[in-house]
């Protein structure tokens, strides 16, 4: 991670007192850029108020660390129990992979332009659709081979009932993935012209329950309709 990624700021503008106060928790843990740290130190040297604020930050941090000493850890059999569950778990295949190497893969290049999670989702779903259709054509033609590994759509999900889902514009990829994974569901088509996605449930899934569960994620899901 480059220094400029540490606080998400591409460059360090002049820091006002409030900016310094905002950054002090990360200054205290050494997570500011060298430029930010230098600017903070200049401000600190001239301001007793900021010095007191830093002392408070350090006290808060020490308390936070001390409070974890009594937390403990998972029970001794926890890992054994988790490992025992792995047999029943399906591992999702990667969406697509180009041959290994130093250069970014096709998908990395394609999705590099997508600056928001929602845009990335659109891009991934669009490419997924193309790859699925491409794979189907290859299968029909009885051919195969080539550079790319076929994207793996969730076969079990594709075979079950479908829902039409509209995601919130700012919904994050991790959150969408977690919500769909809870239902053992996956995106099978989209985005549609209205921006919605076709979500496949596994065969025999309780559609009412799935609709209710998705509607429960109001921060992620703007609307759910029954599909085929």
């Amino acid at each position: 991670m480059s220094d400029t990624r540490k606080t998400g700021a591409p460059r360090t503008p002049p820091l006002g007192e409030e900016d310094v106060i905002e950054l002090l928790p990360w200054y205290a843990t050494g997570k500011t850029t060298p430029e930010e740290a230098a600017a903070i130190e200049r401000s600190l040297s001239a301001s007793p108020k900021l010095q007191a604020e830093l002392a408070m930050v350090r006290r808060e941090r020490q308390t936070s660390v001390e409070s974890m000493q009594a937390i403990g850890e998972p029970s001794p059999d926890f890992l054994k129990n988790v490992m025992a569950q792995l047999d029943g778990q399906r591992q999702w295949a990667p969406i697509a992979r180009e041959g290994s190497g130093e250069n970014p893969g096709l998908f990395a290049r394609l999705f590099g332009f997508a600056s928001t999670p929602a845009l990335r989702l659109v891009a991934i779903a669009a490419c997924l659709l193309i790859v699925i259709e491409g794979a189907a054509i290859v299968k029909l033609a009885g051919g195969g081979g080539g550079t790319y590994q076929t994207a793996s759509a969730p076969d079990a999900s594709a075979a079950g009932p479908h829902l039409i889902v509209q995601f919130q514009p700012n919904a994050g990829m991790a959150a969408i993935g977690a919500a769909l994974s809870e239902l053992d569901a996956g995106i099978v088509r989209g985005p549609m012209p209205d921006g919605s996605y076709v979500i496949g449930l596994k065969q025999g899934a309780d559609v009412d329950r799935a609709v209710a569960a998705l509607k429960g994620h109001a921060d992620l899901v703007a609307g759910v309709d029954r599909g085929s």
Partner: protein
Amino acid sequence: MKAARAKTEGQTEVVLLQRIAGGDRDAFAELYRRLQRPLFGYLMKLVREREMVEDVLNETLMEVWRQAARFEGRSSVNTWVFSIAHHRAVSRLRKRREAALDEEQAAAIEDEGPTPDVRAESSDMSRLLGRLMEQLSFEHREILHLAYYQEFSVQEIADALDLPPNTVKTRMFYARQRLKVLLQESGVEGAVA
């Protein structure tokens, strides 16, 4: 030196995740051993009930096993796993209607809190701060923990919580402001700047 060690550990975790994607159980167990303490501590801070924490941790690990091949390297493995844990915790708390554990409820807890006598006993500032931190909202406890204990950068917290970096800084600012107000209400003079 610390940054170089973190980078090496990050690379090791990426390799472990690649092996997990291939169904390697030893790699899964190794990743668990590396992340179990920070993850368990994080979830204890958020969810608080040990039984539910183990449930959420279990769900998080299952998700790591299922989704390992879909890790795209846009954030560190550590941040990615914390992101899964965060969403699982929020989802579980929502189901239990405990996501409403906001500051109003915290105030109710606070009412049972520091009486004048207790305040005298809590002259140790760290102990008082610790008590007050527990009264903060879910979001405020979470941001303090990730910044102070896990030592996540602004960008790492933004990645884990799906937030813009500026929102991370603002949330931290308000968490600390709230803590100052609670300190002042507990009789600590000059807590609010």
